[in-house]
């Protein structure tokens, strides 16, 4: 648990430095103060992509080796991924309202595919809650976790495949279209949020391990089966 606390502390320091850079970086000429939305919108959705990728990795590893720790990793990552995806969409809506004049547009490919991705991963978490048997739950959710990751590249490349409202990527293999100071601030925030993801992932898997151990200890057969009430039968 000490490692989780240290990671959380490092994440908090990195996020504070990231926020400082975000508010001191130059503004875009047209977006003004709303330029700062870039430094939370991009990192949160990057984390959602990373988290869903780790869910797929955990799912595949579970299907191969049937080790419970991979199932716990997949679950933890999906939960954190949904949190960051929802937060990322919220920041995008605030930004969209200010810059586009509308918070949401179902006709936009990036927005619509992101919404579907979030719904599928909420479905993944709901599926886990609906199956009491740990082995059946792990196997079925691993299959869904493996298939669902196809949405990550679909969301990422949706801006290239369908030219709608959302802009294309600012950082490409051939370079960046951003000012260098803004790029540094963005990369620092991406790193800070990735450290935060690592800390939350470690904390979540630790809790899952404790809960799994608790279930095993609390459910011996002697406690769950009551003794036959023979006296009542004799009285009848």
């Amino acid at each position, binding site marked *: *648990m000490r490692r989780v606390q240290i990671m*959380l502390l490092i994440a908090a320091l990195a996020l504070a430095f990231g926020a400082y850079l975000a508010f001191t970086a130059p503004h875009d000429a047209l977006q003004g103060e*709303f330029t700062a939305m870039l430094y*939370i919108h991009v990192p949160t959705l990057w984390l959602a992509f990373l988290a869903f990728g780790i869910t797929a990795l955990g799912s595949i590893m579970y299907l191969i080796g049937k080790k419970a720790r991979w199932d716990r990793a997949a679950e933890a990552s999906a939960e954190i991924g949904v949190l960051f995806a929802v*937060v990322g969409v919220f920041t995008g809506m*605030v930004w969209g309202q200010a810059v586009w004049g509308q918070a949401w547009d179902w006709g936009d490919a990036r927005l619509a595919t992101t919404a579907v991705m979030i719904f599928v991963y909420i479905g993944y978490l709901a599926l886990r809650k609906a199956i009491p048997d740990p082995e059946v739950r792990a196997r079925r959710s691993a299959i869904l976790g493996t298939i669902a990751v196809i949405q990550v590249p679909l969301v990422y490349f949706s801006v290239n495949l369908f030219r709608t409202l959302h802009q294309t990527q600012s950082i490409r293999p051939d370079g960046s279209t951003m000012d260098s100071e803004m790029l540094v601030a963005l990369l620092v925030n991406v790193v800070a949020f990735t450290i935060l993801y690592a800390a939350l992932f470690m904390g*979540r898997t630790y*809790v899952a391990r*404790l*809960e799994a151990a608790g279930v095993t200890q609390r459910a011996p057969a002697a406690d769950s089966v009551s003794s036959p009430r023979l006296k009542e039968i004799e009285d009848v």
Partner: protein
Amino acid sequence: MSDAFVVFVSYAVVYGSTLGYAAYLHFRRKRAQ
């Protein structure tokens, strides 16, 4: 509402939700122990 205030609230929501999740994990850990 000024633009800076809206941006500030958005940052507060992002950091606050993360903090909320960390607190939720803390209480789940206490209950599991």
